[in-house]
């Protein structure tokens, strides 16, 4: 498939991204670059200096709202992408309304409680849709440990063993690998 055909196909697709941190910001940018039609992004947080070691934001954006700022960054990369940004804490009460029009959904939260919420919400509200999760991306090195695992329409990207801690922080290379892997799985599904 030529890139023009890929773009034409992706133009009609909508992807939801829950969380605009390390996974969400990098995954959104990858999908925007290849010409996804529409992105629905959501996060409640503001950009902090400590986020810049992995998240797709810039030094002069510290203190700004993540979701709205990611929309700005995406639009300056590819203005053809329609971006709907929601500055909200995603929970089981607003999840359905936020993401109902999406072809598939990317899980990009950092907290285990939020990851649990989204798995349950998907099976309750959108049992037929694919959820692409990121689990295990802390630290550095060990490229080979990062993989894709499929359980029906639940797909996990990551090593499924490295948990964030003081001695094992999330860093740009491995977080970016998992975020781009999530975008790559999304493309595989959307271009079928």
């Amino acid at each position, binding site marked *: 498939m030529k890139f023009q055909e890929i773009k034409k196909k992706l133009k009609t697709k909508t992807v939801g991204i829950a*969380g605009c*941190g*390390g*996974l*969400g910001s990098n995954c959104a940018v990858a999908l925007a670059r290849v010409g996804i039609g529409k992105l629905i992004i959501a996060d409640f947080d503001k950009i902090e200096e400590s986020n810049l070691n992995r998240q797709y934001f810039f030094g002069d954006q510290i203190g700004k709202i993540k979701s709205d700022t990611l929309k700005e960054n995406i639009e300056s990369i590819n203005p053809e992408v329609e971006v709907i940004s929601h500055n909200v804490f995603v929970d089981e009460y607003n999840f359905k309304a936020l993401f109902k029009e999406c072809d598939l959904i990317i*899980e*990009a*939260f*950092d*907290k*285990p*409680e939020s*990851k*649990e919420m989204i*798995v*349950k919400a998907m*099976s309750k509200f959108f049992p037929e849709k694919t959820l692409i999760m*990121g*689990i*295990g*991306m*802390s630290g550095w090195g060990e490229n080979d440990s990062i993989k894709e*695992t*499929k*359980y*029906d329409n*639940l797909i*996990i990207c990551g090593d*499924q*063993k*490295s*948990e*964030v801690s003081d001695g094992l922080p*999330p860093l740009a290379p491995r*977080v970016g690998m998992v975020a781009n892997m999530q975008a790559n799985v999304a493309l595989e599904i959307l271009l079928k």
Partner: protein
Amino acid sequence: MKIILNNRPETFECTSMTMGELMEIKKFTYKKIIVKVNNKIVEPHEYNSTIIKENDNVVVLHLLAGG
């Protein structure tokens, strides 16, 4: 019995067991766990009343912080 556990075949001596027993045997002890049996979510309070039998497809996910 034979089941599929996290996409891999597993064989056990018994003909059935509860989800709680399976978690104990396999030492699934992380803080945040999602359990799916035949693609249906099983809540922690249902572990001991959920029977795992031949050919069941069981997924146990450890939800780790980071993202």
